[in-house]
């Protein structure tokens, strides 16, 4: 007897086995391109200037790599927690098929989150190894960073899946990527410390789970102290995940059980 949510997770995994090739480009190629362009191209300039001092002594590539890991986890989670929800509810209506079995709407929601967690662990692990090959991360410490990066992704996956479950079409998703995910990708301390931001914007960054995630992941990968106590970063990410998990269960039930 396997818990229904885990069966849902298994079904996602089976689907992924068939479709992973089509999203391997966005999952891996894009971050690697960022790493090459920013880390190695731009990084050379940064390191020649006053960079190392502002980056607490390290070189730019080492600063960038863990940030990119956390930001990639966020982006992957945003994609995995949104479009499949639209497909399940509207495009293919596979969620409706699942509901005719002993599986409940809550099981569907929690199974999706469980699968997203597994997928983030796999994605961040592969990305970490790729970055280590480029010399951007040092192993084995870099592998530890998989955990905070995955937590960062989940802090987004849960609320985003809840949001997606309330949408009638995918315009809301395009807007989310354009106006939320992309700005967070750029301005959460991934590419430069948020201290470089105008003073009035800086506190806004503290509100985003992505800044906490980037800080935590970077500190883990580099073995340095994060901006705030690690427990605070973790707690803030867990809060988003917990609230999102409750919301997604309710969202799925409200939408699917009528």
């Amino acid at each position, binding site marked *: *007897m*396997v818990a*229904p949510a885990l*069966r*849902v997770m*298994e*079904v996602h995994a*089976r*689907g992924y086995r*068939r*479709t992973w090739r089509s999203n391997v480009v966005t999952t891996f190629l894009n971050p690697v391109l960022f790493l090459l362009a920013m880390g190695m191209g731009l990084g050379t300039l940064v390191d020649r200037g006053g960079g190392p001092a502002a980056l607490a002594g390290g070189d730019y590539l080492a600063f960038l790599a863990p940030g990119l890991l956390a930001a990639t986890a966020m982006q992957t989670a945003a994609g995995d927690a949104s479009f499949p929800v639209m497909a399940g509810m509207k495009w*293919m*209506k*596979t969620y*409706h*098929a*699942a*509901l*005719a*079995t*002993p*599986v*409940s709407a809550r099981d569907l929601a929690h199974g999706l989150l469980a699968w997203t967690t597994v997928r983030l662990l796999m994605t961040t692990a592969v990305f970490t190894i790729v970055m280590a090959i480029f010399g951007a991360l040092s192993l084995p410490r870099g592998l530890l960073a998989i955990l905070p990066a995955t937590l960062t992704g989940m802090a987004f996956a849960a609320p985003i899946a809840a949001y997606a479950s309330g949408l009638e079409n995918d315009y809301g998703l395009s807007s989310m990527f354009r106006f939320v995910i992309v700005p967070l990708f750029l301005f959460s301390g991934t590419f430069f410390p948020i201290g470089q931001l105008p003073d009035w914007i800086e506190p806004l960054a503290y509100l985003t789970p992505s800044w906490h995630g980037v800080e935590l992941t970077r500190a883990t990968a580099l073995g340095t102290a994060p901006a705030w106590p690690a427990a605070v970063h973790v707690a803030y990410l867990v809060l988003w995940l917990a609230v999102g998990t409750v919301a997604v269960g309710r969202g799925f039930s409200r939408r699917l*059980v*009528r």
Partner: protein
Amino acid sequence: MSDPLAPGPGAGHLVAEPAVIEARGLVKRFGDLTAVDGVDFAVAPGEAFGFLGPNGAGKSSTMRMIGAVSPVTAGHLRVLGRDPATEGDVIRARLGVVPQEDTLDTELTVEENLLIYGRYFDLPRAVIRERTDELLAFVQLTDRRRSRVEPLSGGMKRRLTIARSLINQPELLLLDEPTTGLDPQARHLVWDRLYRLKQRGVTLVVTTHYMDEAEQLCDRLVVMDQARIVAEGSPRELIAAHVSREVLELRFSPDEQQEAVARLDGLAKRVEPLPDRVLVYTDDADRAAAEVTERGLLPTSVVVRRATLEDVFLRLTGRSLVE
């Protein structure tokens, strides 16, 4: 496994159970809209039971309540002896559902669709694989086993949906408009498979707005209109109770119809003028046709046919089933 399509071991309990489905005063409301307004019915084990009615009559809402996916607003409902409100998952484990729209995963193959569906029921993979062989043979999709679902024809998708609904060897199969949108050949194939399932003891509940489907499939049916049940019985009983055995259909040129109808007075039990033709309900349509001629009327066309459920519906509601 001797007969993979027969209901699972739970079916034995049915002997002791008076009804597979029992509904009394069943109500479904969505906000201000009352989709189902206090309906009563019972379905016996092994029966093929139908809900006949036009779109929006409340058939699908009733089906979704029976399927334990839509909460009952008011009234009493028991499915397989259990309350959908508290034991929905137990009920669903023993049900097969063929929804109105195909809900297949079109990115996956035919067999993968059966596999993931079987996993939702927590069936072991070996069992699913074995049943997949048998079910695909049953719906004549064996040679499509490894095809992706997306390019399949509507009839094939429908058959796959039926195969999928049987993966858990259900005792009760719910079919919401199983052949809507299919061509005649595909419809007959679906009907044939459903008939075989019935022969094996599966209880069938079907909604349809096709009277020929209801006549083909159903031992007993209820006619629904505007959220209520307006008649109940076997197709034959309904015809006998509400209309005559035969119908004479007469067409006149449009400007002559009104006058002609006046002259048909007293010809039969009932004369029903429609916009494009006149229906004469009689037990002997040939006799009535002869009398039409004797009265000196010259219709442009004369058709003698048996009365159908369409006539019953028209009689009860004044409207056609398919509008």
